[in-house]
């Protein structure tokens, strides 16, 4: 093609937009729907992709509602809150309490998200992908408004409420990849720094919101009155009956080694598919360690880290060398006192703020205070160290390591197996787009890399309960990654 790069981009952009929703103009001009949305007019009913939402009530969401809810302070959730309704199976009353508690938290949080999205530049939110996310949030809020004025008093209500929760979780499943695409397309109109700042806050808040919803759903499915009714919908359910170590989504006896092996298998499969070889893992330390944590989160983090390690190992030709993973349980501490936000120079390590060690790649961003606070006397945590021989991270890439959307994965280069990687996806417009289009699908899907979200998001998950990720690169040899997890508490 002899179109210049700008022209090529416009065509690609237009193609995506056209794919997205047929009726919109294939340009960056505002569509009428978006205008309607911004003025708080009632949303036309969106065709959703599954049956059960047909019977979910929605109410009109006005700007006033949003403003009112967003002005409410956010209740800083603690894990005790999540677990206070008791060990499943829950009694009917406890279940209702859980539902009402969830109800008290979510609308405000959603409203905050909406406002935060709205404070992005107009033209960014006009991007079809970003605006889709925005309307998802408005939709979710609209499903919660009918409950705003009343408490959940009967089991029937509670079942309906749980359906709403399920809808919430389902709707927002692909937020990350869609947002990623949106920001990539709109990168001319917003700086990388602003994107990072927004995403940091948003994604961390998202972790919380989803956690609250998923916790209730899991508690619901594991509770006495419902066990007979529902058979196998949620993944937790089949385990619930045998393992009483679960409280909702929290597994009080989670073995990191177990998750590591699972992730190893999964990522290994992808590697074999893509590269024909599969690196191995050697586990040392105390492999039988168990902590109380959320399997879903840990799985995500480990998958991302292993993806990085495996890819680096293969690209460096070192797949015969096992990747060494050390599991180091922290000794039981009686009272863990956090000395506040004590960052020496940069963050890194166990409860990132306390440790004086330096992670030269991580930035100095302020964490939002909306996080869930770990219990004061947490069960001891664990540190997992992943050591690979993949050649390390080059000094130029180090500073971009924690940015959203930065990736060294480039489909074309992989085939040539060059050792130098492409620079930030923001500057290599075409290549970045290819990567995004090649990935598609939900996060954690079948591709090995490409979105550039693995590390920052993994760190968000780790830090959510007071842990962290630190990366130490030995350029020319390999990389050491230190994942520290604090137990989510004695329940």
């Amino acid at each position, binding site marked *: 093609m002899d179109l210049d790069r700008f022209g090529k981009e416009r065509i690609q952009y237009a193609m995506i937009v056209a794919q997205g929703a047929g009726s919109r103009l294939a340009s960056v001009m505002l569509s009428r729907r978006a205008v309607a949305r911004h003025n708080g007019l009632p949303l036309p009913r969106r065709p959703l992709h599954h049956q059960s939402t047909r019977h979910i009530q929605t109410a009109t969401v006005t700007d006033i509602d949003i403003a009112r809810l967003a002005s409410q302070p956010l209740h800083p959730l603690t894990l005790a809150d999540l677990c206070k309704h008791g060990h499943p199976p829950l009694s009917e009353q406890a279940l209702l309490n859980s539902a009402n508690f969830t109800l008290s938290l979510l609308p405000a949080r959603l409203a905050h998200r909406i406002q935060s999205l709205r404070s992005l530049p107009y033209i960014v939110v006009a991007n079809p992908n970003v605006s889709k996310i925005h309307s998802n949030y408005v939709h979710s809020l609209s499903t919660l408004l009918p409950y705003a004025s009343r408490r959940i008093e009967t089991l029937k209500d509670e079942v309906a409420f749980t359906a709403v929760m399920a809808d919430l979780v389902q709707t927002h499943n692909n937020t990350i990849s869609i947002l990623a695409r949106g920001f990539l397309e709109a990168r001319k109109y917003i700086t990388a720094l602003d994107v990072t700042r927004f995403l940091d806050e948003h994604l961390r808040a998202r972790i919380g919101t989803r956690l609250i919803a998923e916790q209730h759903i899991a508690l619901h499915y594991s509770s006495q009155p419902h066990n007979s009714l529902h058979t196998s919908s949620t993944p937790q359910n089949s385990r619930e009956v045998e393992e009483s170590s679960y409280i909702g989504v929290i597994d009080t006896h989670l073995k990191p080694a177990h998750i590591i092996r699972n992730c190893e298998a999964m990522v290994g499969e992808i590697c074999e598919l893509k590269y024909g070889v599969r690196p191995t893992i050697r586990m040392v*330390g105390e492999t039988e360690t168990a902590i109380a944590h959320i399997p879903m989160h840990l799985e995500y983090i480990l998958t991302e880290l292993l993806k990085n390690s495996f890819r680096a190992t293969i690209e460096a030709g070192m797949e015969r060398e096992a990747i060494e993973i*050390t599991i*180091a*349980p*922290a*000794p039981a*501490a009686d009272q*863990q006192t956090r*000395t506040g936000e*004590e960052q*020496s120079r940069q963050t*890194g*390590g*166990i409860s990132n703020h*306390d*440790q*004086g*060690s*330096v*992670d*030269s790649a991580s930035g100095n961003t302020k964490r939002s205070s909306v996080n869930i606070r770990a219990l004061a006397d947490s069960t*001891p*945590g664990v*540190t997992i*160290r992943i050591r690979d021989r993949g050649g*390390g991270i080059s*000094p130029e890439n180090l500073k971009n390591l924690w940015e959203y959307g930065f990736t060294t994965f480039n489909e074309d280069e992989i085939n040539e197996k060059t050792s130098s990687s492409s620079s930030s996806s923001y500057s290599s417009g075409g290549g970045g787009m290819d990567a995004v289009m090649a990935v598609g699908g939900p996060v954690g899907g079948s591709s090995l890399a490409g979105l550039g979200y693995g590390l920052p998001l993994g760190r968000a998950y780790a830090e959510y309960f007071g842990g962290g990720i*630190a990366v*130490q690169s*030995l*350029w*020319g*040899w390999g990389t*050491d990654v*230190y994942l*520290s997890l604090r137990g989510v508490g004695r329940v």
Partner: protein
Amino acid sequence: MQTLPYSALTNEHISHVYEAYYRAFEIFRKVPEVRTLTDNDRFCEALQTTLKEHLTVIPRLAMGILEIQDSVSGDECDRFMNTLLRSRISRRVIAEQHLALNETFHSPWHFDGKKSAIAPEDEFVGEIFLKCNAKEIVEKCAQRASELTRKAYGPTVSLPKIVLQGHLDTTFPYIPSHLEYILGELLRNSLQAVVEQRSSAEPPPIEVLICEAAQHVIIRVSDQGGGIDREILPYLWSFAKGPRRMKRLKNLGKVPRLAATMQDLQLPPSHPESAAGSGEKFGSSLVSLSGRPPDLRLGIGLPMSRIYAEYWAGSLELHSLEGYGCDAFLQISRLGNKNEVLSTRATMDAV
């Protein structure tokens, strides 16, 4: 030092150091331009005396800092120490380099304690050893640290082996005494942690990895000594220690040759090679510090090492696996053309 709060200087240690610097300033500003060899000789003598006199600066300052914790904030102390120590390294390097070159000039073939028989000019440029072999230095430091630890904990203690891996042929130009100090401190910390943790069976080895790239060399010291205590963690890199202040203060007073008067520079007979092996002839505060028994914990090893590492545009980082062990990463810039990292007037004045 004049910009420190007045209360800091009422502390006897700090004021002693201040006086020493003042005197040095007076001496040197009176030295006329060096035109002849005799002038040079006189200059060198002045240099040497002053260097000797300032040997106690580090421990004294450290003690002073600990003592004034109540009146001056920890952050300010750290900033001050960093600035001062950086410029101190710079001055001493320049001074010692000149003295070394002077020495070479006068007696090119008689180099005290120089191990190899090759002409020194090939390998040493004054103090800088052009071909520091990472492996050799690590092994030497390992040996020394092991001996010291054994002495401190008794001959029956089982020491962990120190195992080297990686690119073992790496060479780079550096000042050996600096490197030995840093590695010594790191290895000593590791050894100590491992020994104090388990006194019984075969202790797990300490792994040292040497890795070279075009622009730098990275040395990773990895031990299984139980990691770093949570309560100390925030104060790891600070001269203003937290919970262990009092003990540190006491220990600092015991550092060999911290005494108010520095009569002579006899190194204890147990360290016949400490000055000689490193080509270091003027004795340095580093040597006296390195020679202390390992259970004399001063609490300045890490921040000092970091300053030395960063002086030549390198870095020192530490990651602790709580309950398991610790990894230290020392990065040394290889290219000889990196400028020294000082705290300039601009950064000092800036808030």
